[in-house]
């Protein structure tokens, strides 16, 4: 009865896996994971971590008739509203996820347990905070080094250091490596000056050297049980050192778009406030459960939604904007906003084994509402995407759409067309409406007061 399709991102762990049935995600615990699961409960660690907002809470449903003989019980975790991936996070999101992982490990060790992996994708942002979603990642603490050490350095420290010391855009190379950025690769890309910084030196540069030089040493015989002291104490020293290394990493955002609203070249103040109150009014009337803000910039319009309690994912291709949105939302303790780095002309693909470990952007939709404000001209003119393809994309990611038409005589569009041929004959209000009407019903149409831009509320056909 509890059969459902497995979520392929979780197939590696013999202790259990995630499956989905009728839109609800469950986690099956196998007999192989029973002892550690029971320890998590009996040690009080589950209580501690869930109370601290570090681990996802769940209900233990007991074994609900399953055909799999290795199954022991089934958990129903709190559902994650939107799954995001580390390469979509801004610097501070990855940094906070790294610190959360280390804090979980610290508390786990105090309770006689330890993280058996440190995959950044095990962390998800729920209510604006990084949360460990893999309940089966915690195992009994044993002597010896921390098995998650290399993964932590590859998934967190390497992309953070690359963003901090080389170029923020390099943190996106984690999209190329499903198990984190290889350390020798990160070491080569980092500037030489980082050999003089303790964190990058110890955990990236020398780690890469050590990994290569020591890889083929024969593994020694199992250690006697007397070495308890070397276990916890040495792990603690490494965890403390990793925390210092992460805490010292900084990145100062910059970008062409983040001052967009402050400059407001394209808007009169009047049209701008009209647009804002229209969106607020329509949102208040519809009260969607989920919203995607495409091209969110600094998230001014996303705020209108989150103020109404609408779960909002705010996408922008500019990591500076996303960083700013995240830091601001964290400060305001906004539980509804999830800002993510996304280039709509090349959105996140499905990745990993058989393309099933990570879902593409479209697979993670549709949202009830999509906001596409001041973005149409970037897609249609800036990127030569035909209007029909834009309409179909919007149709695939949302059921209702609030979209702004930006005409050719807008200063921004004129600047875009200044040095190139105008090969966009269909790009006018009439063409836009006729093409979008193939996929949407136009519910509202309001010309903004500056007389050029038009705001639409549409419903999918």
């Amino acid at each position, binding site marked *: 009865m509890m059969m459902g399709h497995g979520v392929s991102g979780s197939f*590696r762990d*013999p202790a259990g896996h995630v499956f989905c049935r009728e839109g609800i995600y469950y986690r099956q615990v196998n007999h192989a994971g029973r002892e550690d699961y029971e320890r998590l409960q009996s040690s009080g660690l589950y209580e501690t971590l869930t109370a601290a907002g570090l681990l996802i809470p769940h209900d233990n449903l007991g074994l609900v008739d399953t055909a799999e003989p290795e199954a022991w019980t089934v958990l129903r975790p709190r559902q994650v509203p939107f799954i995001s991936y580390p390469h979509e996070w801004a610097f501070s999101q990855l940094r906070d996820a790294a610190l959360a992982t280390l804090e979980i490990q610290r508390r786990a060790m105090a309770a006689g347990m330890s993280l058996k992996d440190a995959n950044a994708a095990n962390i998800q942002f729920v209510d604006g905070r990084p949360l460990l979603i893999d309940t089966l990642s915690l195992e009994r603490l044993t002597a010896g080094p921390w*098995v998650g050490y*290399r993964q932590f350095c590859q998934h967190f420290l390497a992309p953070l250091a690359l963003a901090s010391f080389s170029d923020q855009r390099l943190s996106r190379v984690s999209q190329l490596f499903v198990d984190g950025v290889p350390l020798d690769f990160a070491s080569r890309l980092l500037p030489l000056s980082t050999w003089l910084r303790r964190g990058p030196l*110890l955990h990236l540069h020398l*780690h890469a050297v050590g*990994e*290569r030089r020591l*890889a083929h040493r024969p593994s*020694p015989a199992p250690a006697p049980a007397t070495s308890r002291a070397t276990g916890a104490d040495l792990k603690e020293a490494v965890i403390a050192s990793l925390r210092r290394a992460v805490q010292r990493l900084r990145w100062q955002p910059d970008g062409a778009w983040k001052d967009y609203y402050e400059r407001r070249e394209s808007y009169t103040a009047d049209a701008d406030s009209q647009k804002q109150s229209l969106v607020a009014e329509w949102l208040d009337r519809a009260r969607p459960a989920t919203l995607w803000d495409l091209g969110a910039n600094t998230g001014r319009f996303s705020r209108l939604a989150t103020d109404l309690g609408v779960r909002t994912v705010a996408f922008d291709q500019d990591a500076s904007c996303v960083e700013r949105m995240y830091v601001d939302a964290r400060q305001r303790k906004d539980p509804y906003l999830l800002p993510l780095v996304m280039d709509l002309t090349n959105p996140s693909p499905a990745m990993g084994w058989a393309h099933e470990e990570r879902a593409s952007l479209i697979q993670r939709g549709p949202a009830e509402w999509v906001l596409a404000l001041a973005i149409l001209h970037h897609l249609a003119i800036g990127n030569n995407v035909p209007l029909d393809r834009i309409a179909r994309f919007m149709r695939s990611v949302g059921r209702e759409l609030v979209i702004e038409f930006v005409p050719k005589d807008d200063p921004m569009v004129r600047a875009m067309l200044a040095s190139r041929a105008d090969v966009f004959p269909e790009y006018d209000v009439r063409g836009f409406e006729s093409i979008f009407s193939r996929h949407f019903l136009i519910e509202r149409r309001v010309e903004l007061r500056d007389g050029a831009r038009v705001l639409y509320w549409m419903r999918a056909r």
Partner: protein
Amino acid sequence: MKLPHTDGRSDVGGKLVVVTVALLAIFSVETEHVYAYIDPGTGSLLYQTAIATVLGVGILLRSNWRSIVRVFGAVFKGHPPDPGAKARTDSK
């Protein structure tokens, strides 16, 4: 007196020590057997054991720095151990 490793930016001497000890440790360590469902990497595990040892020694040195200085001071300068030093360490 300034404690070592309290200022990460200017402590070049401390860094050199860390590098040297870590490099020495890399080529001399043995690790314990660990079992993991992911591949933690044999090289990475051995390396971690080495730096954990270095970091552990660092912590040990830091927490006992005054006593160490007192003993070395006594040995090299021929002064008798300063009885006040221990009191100052304890009251920290």
